[in-house]
């Protein structure tokens, strides 16, 4: 396998309802990523595209529909999609295009436009449930998260306040992210006093609904060294699926992530991730999910995560800063694009270009994670300089 670097990144602002079409959002992110490393479309050899369910953009076969906005005209172009896990998985997908030796440059573009769905994209989520054992109850996606959150808190004696502390920490990082949807500081009290949706999930425990796109440029070592003095290397990739019966999982522990993370850590030569990883971008559609995933990423011992959180272990200047980008909770959640924000964040952080969000102390190694499909898929990328 050849070494692969991230050499550029770009994104649109994340908003509740964009005027831009999904193609136009993709174009804006792709153009920004190319501009960031002074590359032209003609320098790109292939496109690895990611976008979650077709229903969100309201166009079937949207991989083909979006291709030209992703710079895919007349190039080998392929879409991957596994729901929420898409944004990081698309980078794994781009990685093997280059690592294999087939291509020297690859654009990875992820886009989602959630606002087409009226009144709310939840209506499309209904159809992911089993039609015999679940759909007769007319379930809602929030039910799954509520069940998980409740069981997770029960398993370790965590409280809703603990979860809100994690939520406020992550959301407020987004105030310093130029693409963020969140514009006002959120306090722990704001989260605890927000409207109950499906107990124990309250409105501000959840990420917002967003439109947006993110792109990164991957390059082989020889091209990367020609383009930049600060390439950020993809050190390891991993992905995995657990059982597709979400009802058959340990709701308190993300086993799907443990296996994916170990795959990526093995490739990166990391034996003790909690000591070696300097920045973590766990997938955080809900505040509890960030903590849940820190445990799955082997960055925090099971049941001790709240203690570490309250001790400042996951603060921007802590041992392992958690979601310095502001995450899905703060930057926003255009499904596939939200995962790629995490890749872009590691790119900025490891180059020392994250501005007010910059993690101090010259971070050298970071991990990004996304989770999705029928709640059982995970994708993990380890990046280093």
């Amino acid at each position, binding site marked *: 396998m050849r070494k692969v670097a991230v050499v550029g990144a770009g994104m649109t602002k994340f908003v509740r309802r964009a005027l831009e*079409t999904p193609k136009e959002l993709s174009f804006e992110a792709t153009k920004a990523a190319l501009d960031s490393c002074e590359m032209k479309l003609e320098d790109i050899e292939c496109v690895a595209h990611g976008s979650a369910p077709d229903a969100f953009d309201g166009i079937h076969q949207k991989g083909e529909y979006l291709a030209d906005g992703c710079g895919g005209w007349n190039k080998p172009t392929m879409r991957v999609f596994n729901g929420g896990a898409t944004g990081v998985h698309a980078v794994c997908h781009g990685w093997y295009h280059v690592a294999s030796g087939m291509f020297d440059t690859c654009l990875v573009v992820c886009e989602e436009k959630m606002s087409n769905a009226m009144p709310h994209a939840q209506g499309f989520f209904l159809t992911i449930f089993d039609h015999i054992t679940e759909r007769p109850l007319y379930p809602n996606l929030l039910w799954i998260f509520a069940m998980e959150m409740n069981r997770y808190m029960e398993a370790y004696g965590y409280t809703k306040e603990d979860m809100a502390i994690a939520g406020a920490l992550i959301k407020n990082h987004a105030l310093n992210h130029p693409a963020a949807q969140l514009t006002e500081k959120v306090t722990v009290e704001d989260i605890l006093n927000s409207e109950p949706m499906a107990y124990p999930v309250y409105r501000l425990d959840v990420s917002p609904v967003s439109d947006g796109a993110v792109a990164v440029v991957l390059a082989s070592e020889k091209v990367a060294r020609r383009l930049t003095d600060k390439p950020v290397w993809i050190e390891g990739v991993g992905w995995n699926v657990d059982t597709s019966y979400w009802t058959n999982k340990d709701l308190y522990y993300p086993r799907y992530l443990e296996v994916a993370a170990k795959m990526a850590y093995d490739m990166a030569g990391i034996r003790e991730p909690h000591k070696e990883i300097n920045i973590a971008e766990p997938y955080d559609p809900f505040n509890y999910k960030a903590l849940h995933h820190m445990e799955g990423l082997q960055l925090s011992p099971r049941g001790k995560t709240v203690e570490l959180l309250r001790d400042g272990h996951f603060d921007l200047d802590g041992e392992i800063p958690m979601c310095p980008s502001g995450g899905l909770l703060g930057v926003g959640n255009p499904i596939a694009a939200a995962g790629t924000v995490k890749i872009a964040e590691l790119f900025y952080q490891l180059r020392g270009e994250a501005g007010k969000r910059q993690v101090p102390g010259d971070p050298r190694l970071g991990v990004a994670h996304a989770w999705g499909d029928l709640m059982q898929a995970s994708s993990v990328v380890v990046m280093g300089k």
Partner: protein
Amino acid sequence: MAFRERIEKNTGNIFRSSEEGKYFPVVSRYTAGVAGQKFLEEIKENEKIFGTRCSKCEITFVPAKLYCERCFARMEKEHWVDVGTRGTLYSYTVAYEEKDGSPKETPSIIGAIKLGDGLLFHWIKESSADDLEIGMEVDAVFKPKGERRGSLVDIDYFKPKK
């Protein structure tokens, strides 16, 4: 036993995906986009059809687009070109059946109309299929101003040049 009866013998009492009043009603409500909005406004307000011309690639995209898909140049104001309302018939088809398979009372004609370097699909009227020839010129017929609402069908149809 008919197919539907055989099916319903087993499944008649279980879940159906769109049971009245219980499913989550959701529809897709799209935006026209940055380029699409201006394209539709020109049709609605001015009876004009616009494309965008990439001078580097020497292509006039119709309908107008925000970017050139080949070189990724952003199509700014100066790239917008009025391609006129007369195009040439690049291809056409005649639809004889309704969506449910029943015969159409009057067959409808759909044309691929070349404008700039792009094709617009639209109805062809005021002509029988027998009188159509590929390569012939066709003119856009717009709905009356009061009936236009910023849509592709503000162009009512195309008809052969008189």
